[in-house]
């Protein structure tokens, strides 16, 4: 690919994904530009989490095309995909209970230069420093979420896949997370958010993909959001 640098950070074409016998994604197409914040909206079970897992290679079987910065990853093992510079924050947060807070923080491999240092992260999340020798799951839900975010910021990953990071958290913490995403965006991170909390997503994202029954049903740019409320309510069933 001599010197050709695609501006798309993530480009998915015709993605199908399966868990054992169930066929979850039926041909998903989406692109995310460098520095963009994009959300995946949809009902529970529409396949949003599966899209993120498919990008990481964490589904049983997947085909189609997923390019990260122009590199085809559909045949790659998960650890190699991660090393292309992706930070993944799973829905259940994935804090390891057998590891201390600091061990959790240091677990993900540094994949690119330019990640935040541990002191920087402790500055950003002082609670984590205070509790760095506690076991990971002793933290409160909000602290666990901060830890899940902090540990992928250390790796230098520039593409962040964040699955339901506000789920079950107090409004004040959701607000902090919103500020954090805003900061990350201004630092040039590319972010794909799976969100249930539409109001949280609306303020942050450049574009919204609506996922329905394993396909992309709609694409709503930020400025069309107000005029699409009715349509969205129909998709989300709220």
């Amino acid at each position, binding site marked *: 690919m001599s010197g050709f640098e695609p501006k798309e950070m993530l480009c998915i074409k015709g993605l199908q994904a399966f868990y054992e016998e169930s066929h979850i994604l039926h041909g998903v197409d989406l692109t995310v530009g460098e520095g963009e914040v994009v959300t995946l909206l949809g009902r529970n079970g529409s396949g949003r989490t599966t899209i993120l897992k498919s990008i*990481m*290679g*964490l589904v049983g079987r997947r085909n189609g095309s997923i390019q990260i910065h122009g590199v085809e990853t559909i045949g790659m*093992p*998960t*650890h190699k995909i*991660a*090393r292309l510079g992706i930070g*993944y924050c*799973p829905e259940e947060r*994935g804090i*390891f*209970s*057998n*590891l201390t807070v600091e*061990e959790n923080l*240091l*677990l*993900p*491999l540094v*994949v690119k230069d330019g990640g935040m240092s541990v002191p920087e992260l402790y500055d950003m999340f002082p609670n984590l420093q205070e509790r760095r020798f506690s076991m990971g799951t002793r933290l409160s839900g909000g602290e666990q979420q901060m830890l899940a975010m902090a*540990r992928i910021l250390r*790796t230098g990953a520039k593409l962040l896949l964040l699955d339901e990071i506000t789920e079950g958290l107090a409004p004040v913490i959701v607000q902090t997370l919103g500020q954090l995403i805003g900061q990350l965006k201004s630092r040039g991170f590319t972010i794909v958010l799976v969100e249930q909390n539409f109001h949280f997503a609306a303020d942050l994202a450049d574009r919204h993909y609506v996922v329905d029954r394993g396909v992309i049903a709609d694409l709503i740019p930020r400025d069309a959001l107000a005029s699409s409320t009715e349509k969205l309510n129909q998709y989300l069933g709220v």
Partner: protein
Amino acid sequence: MELSFQTVLSQVMLGLNNGVFYAILSLGLAVIFGLLNIVNFVHGALYMLGAYVALLGYTMLGPLLGKPDFHLNYWVALIVAPLVVGLLGIGVERTMLRRLRKFDHLYGLLLTFGLALIIQGVFTNYFNVSGDAYDGKPESLEGAVNLGFMLFPKYRLWVIGISLLVCFATWFVIERTKLGSYLRAGTENPELVKAFGVNVPLMITLTYGYGAALAAFAGVLAAPIYSVSPVMGSEMIITVFAVVVIGGMGSIMGSIITGLLLGMVEGFTKVVYAPASSTVIFLIMVVVLLVKPTGLFGKES
């Protein structure tokens, strides 16, 4: 019956000597179970193979190479046997166990049990079932040391010392180092560890190799004490499985402590009522299973 403190103490010391074998073998089982989620039934056979690498290296390697005076040195065997058996373990994981990862753990158990029977069967065919003595014990470990309450064989003291060192070093690496944090995380959620850029399949292979190497190491340590026979592994492994059940599957420190304690309990029983010494561990297992089915150090799941 009058129990002199001295008799008790000396039997407990001898029991501790058995205990370190239980500890080192159940430790290997715990490490393998943690990451691979299989009960490694071939563990006893790997222990036996370790002893045979030492024995055959001593007796047959020289003639085979056309140098009848060559004997594989004990210290060299202590390094070579774990390497050979560790590599064998890596081969087994890569070619067989890996294919079973996505199925129920029962298949891994059956596969390793089958392997154990095959290895033991082949060795029974070619070697003396009643055992061969290993004559390679180094001269520096001949003789006995006066412990104050008894004269204890120097070699056995060495075995206790080095086994404790290996066990606690393994514990330290797993529980206190960065490398160990990958292992612990991999035990808990291997998929997510992959998503953090760690080559988990490689880690699994090396862990199995290390477990196999530990078993072989114990085998070489055992060679000068017990006779080397094709069935030494299967005899040992039955007790070790009881130890694992008592300690609780998957706990690293638990498997070490339980191994040591049960060895000593066995030794103590020899003084009190000798005929029960070979069954006492199984009695304890029954009681533990009734009272705390997850084992003494096991976590409720």
